[in-house]
């Protein structure tokens, strides 16, 4: 292909995902927000005056910023040792532990509410701490959800760092701590920044955690937008808050993008097997103790409690909840039907998100010489992260007023559910794949060109194999996100074809031992499905990747 052909090809590669994002995210969300600035006769900014005159708004903004920042810092503090332990050392049971840490990521909030609520209430296992309804409970749940984002994003990069740099530093007399601070962490910085920005966005936009665990005493920008939109339909105030949310998210993305540019250095990446070393009790006891502590308190206790509860009916230890769910079904559907709907939907969403995410990552990882082009690409990358920072209710209600006539009358169509899930999963994929592509040593690309490889050959022989390595992780995360997605899905729910999270939500909404027990059993099955998916995605990574 001639250079012109390549230009057109890259433009197309950017245009397809952009069109998708515009149609299924930007247009619906912007339409709803714009309605808030239009009062029938003309444009008005009165929403801002009302919203910012209220002390409630400032409390919500303050709470959003502090809780998301604290959650990000805590996740990094706890997650980095976990990343080291799970990706740089080898020990028996490691695979299971890797799968376990990802399970919370897919659990719908109603399940987290039940799992944590039973632990934290006055007579619960952790009731002595008096955390019920406090910001600490909210923060704990945010870390519960996002811990695996740090462990996996940073860990998969860590696993592939060239150990020779660290070895050289150690040989030259640097202490282990100095090697960590001076060599390893700087090399991991892009992945750390990437993970941190994801955790911040997830925490800042979490609705269910703040509502359920804060028991209404705390509100964030996100919960205010939900309340104003779904209960009051006060679009004017909601729009002003949505803009505020957008400003905060844009600032966070700008900060992370600046940090990433400053820290990205080309790395010599290795296949992971070459760098991991056997677990050594003397060297690795501290990260092991910390990771086990986190795992037990934050993961095993709530999940184990859920499992324990699901094995009971009344006071009897029994499998009745599972057998009844499997044989009779509930709410006009069977477990198998709901499971199938969930899997098919999540597969479709993952397919869309992965295909589009690869395109975005390839385009955004170009290395243009002109500054304006580089800025353009950075903006493109940030654009695809926005869905994480914009309220699901804004997008969901936006669908209702935009996708409402042929050929796009999709509001009661089953197709819209995987599309909405793909919009949510897409940013995650971009955030996982981009650092991998950016870490390719430019000298390798240049050497290939000098030796006569055309752009296509460079793409096929160097860039795609690298992309391939990140793909297992990206696919796993995308699939798990879609499997557990509830916010956007709930607005599009079809009672006859519920996904598992929707079925669980509906079962938990009714009185009676049977429905409660079946809801618990379905939650455990969903958690198990997520664990299996993540473990499988981990193994999906091919070994025959280019190394040098």
């Amino acid at each position: 292909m001639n250079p012109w052909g390549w230009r057109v090809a890259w433009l197309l590669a950017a245009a397809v995902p952009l069109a998708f994002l515009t149609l299924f995210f930007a247009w619906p969300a912007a339409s709803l927000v714009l309605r808030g600035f239009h009062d029938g006769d003309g444009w008005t900014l009165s929403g801002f005056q009302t919203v910012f005159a209220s002390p409630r708004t400032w409390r919500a903004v303050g709470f959003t910023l502090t809780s998301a920042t604290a959650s990000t810092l805590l996740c990094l503090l706890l997650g980095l040792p976990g990343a080291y332990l799970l990706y740089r050392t080898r020990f028996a049971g490691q695979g299971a532990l890797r799968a376990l840490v990802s399970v919370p990521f897919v659990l719908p909030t109603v399940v987290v509410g039940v799992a944590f609520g039973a632990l934290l209430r006055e007579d619960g296992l952790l009731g002595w701490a008096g955390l019920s309804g406090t910001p600490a409970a909210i923060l704990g749940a945010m870390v519960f959800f996002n811990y695996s984002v740090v462990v996996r994003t940073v860990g998969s990069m860590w696993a592939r760092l060239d150990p020779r740099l660290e070895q050289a530093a150690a040989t030259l007399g640097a202490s282990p701590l100095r090697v960590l601070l001076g060599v390893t962490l700087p090399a991991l910085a892009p992945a750390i920044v990437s993970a941190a920005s994801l955790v911040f966005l997830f925490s800042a936009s979490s609705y269910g955690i703040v509502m359920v665990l804060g028991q209404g005493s705390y509100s964030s920008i996100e919960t205010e937008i939900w309340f104003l939109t779904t209960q009051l339909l006060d679009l004017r105030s909601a729009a002003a808050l949505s803009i505020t949310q957008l400003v905060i998210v844009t600032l966070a993305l700008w900060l992370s993008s600046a940090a990433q540019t400053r820290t990205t250095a080309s790395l010599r990446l290795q296949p992971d097997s070459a760098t991991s070393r056997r677990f050594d009790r003397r060297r690795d006891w501290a990260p092991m103790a910390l990771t086990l502590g986190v795992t037990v308190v934050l993961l095993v206790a709530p999940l184990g409690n859920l499992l324990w509860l699901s094995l009971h009916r009344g006071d009897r230890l029994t499998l009745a909840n599972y057998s009844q769910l499997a044989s009779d079904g509930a709410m006009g559907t069977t477990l198998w039907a709901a499971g199938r709907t969930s899997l098919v939907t999540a597969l479709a969403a993952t397919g869309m998100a992965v295909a589009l995410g690869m395109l975005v990552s390839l385009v955004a990882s170009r290395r243009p010489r002109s500054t304006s082009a580089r800025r353009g690409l950075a903006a493109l990358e940030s654009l695809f992260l926005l869905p994480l920072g914009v309220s699901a209710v804004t997008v969901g209600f936006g669908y209702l007023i935009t996708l409402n006539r042929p050929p796009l009358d999709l509001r009661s169509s089953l197709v819209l559910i995987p599309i909405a899930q793909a919009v949510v999963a897409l940013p995650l994929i971009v955030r996982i794949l981009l650092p991998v592509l950016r870490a390719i040593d430019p000298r390798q690309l240049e050497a290939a060109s000098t030796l006569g490889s055309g752009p296509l050959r460079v793409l096929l022989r160097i860039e795609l194999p690298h992309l391939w390595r990140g793909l297992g992780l990206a696919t796993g995360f995308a699939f798990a996100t879609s499997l557990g997605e509830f916010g956007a899905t709930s607005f599009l729910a079809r009672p006859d074809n519920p996904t598992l999270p929707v079925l669980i939500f509906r079962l938990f909404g009714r009185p009676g031992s049977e429905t409660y027990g079946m809801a618990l059993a379905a939650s455990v099955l969903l958690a198990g499905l997520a664990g299996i998916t993540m473990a499988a995605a981990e193994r999906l990574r091919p070994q025959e990747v280019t190394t040098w």
Partner: protein
Amino acid sequence: MQRMIVAGLTAVALLALSACGGAPSSGEAGAPSPTQTDKLTVVTHDAFTLPDELKAKFADETGLEVTYVAPGDTGTLVNQLVLTKDSPLGDVVYGIDNTFASRAASEGVLVDYESPLAASTQEFAAPQLTPIDFGDVCINADTAWFEAAGIEIPSTLDDLTDPVYKDLLVVTNPASSAPGLSFLLATIGAKGEDGYLDYWQALSDNGTKVASGWTEAYYTDFSGADGKGPRPLVLSYSTSPAYTVDGDTSTTQALLGTCFRAVEYAGVLHGTTNEAGAQKFIDFMLSPEVQAAIPENLYMYPVIADTPLPKDWARFAPLSEVPFEVPAEQIGQHRDQWIRDWTEAIG
């Protein structure tokens, strides 16, 4: 080449923006004249469920291809209908309750329909809506807990602020839960617009916990349900005790002096392309089979008076004889303000 990419991205972004620009004026379609189609979209609240056989029977008898969508609780549902009234979400709605009924009517979301089957339901009449079922939202008590503690079960709203019952009650947030809003209205019905916040302050001082939703309150905090929480008083429905029956008694009981009467309605949506089908669906909801299925599926009382009830209901799920009431127009005018005031004062 890089310039080309940037130029291309800019073009796409501009296209996107111009697409957004036209959005606020979307949907001038108005009400299209009813044309007969064989498709019917039923919009319901998220707790809607009926046996498959009944739904299949309706589809067979009418020859309609029916799609059910359930976008949220009653408030979310009504607000979505208001938002989309120029291009309706479906043809017929079920699940608007009396806390949001006046809003649906005043916003022009519905068209008139009087079902020939609705004759005996005058007492719940609401403009443009057909009552389908009703029930009471009441405080429930864990009878065994009170027996073991040797304390008398409370019976009135005022009892709940008595120090004897300190730290025993969990209710739900009216800003995020439909029963929570019903209970807020019960307190307004009982204490008046000027007194309800003082009452809530007294509840709060007496250690009342406010959970975000029914599930959290009933299954995490309440001692009488399977979650085995610490609090023996919970906000739920008058029918809930019928689902905690153990042997020949129920382990819970509804406090009939603390109830708000909730009525659920169906209505034909303005702008439907299948008005006849929508009307048939409302008639279907009033048919004897559906009315008889309502208790076990929706946990509400059927609106048609002589419908047989499950045998446990007479004993364990009686209705309140003196539910608190607030006129629908008054709810319509003040609901949002009441919720906001409550949130400022208590939430």
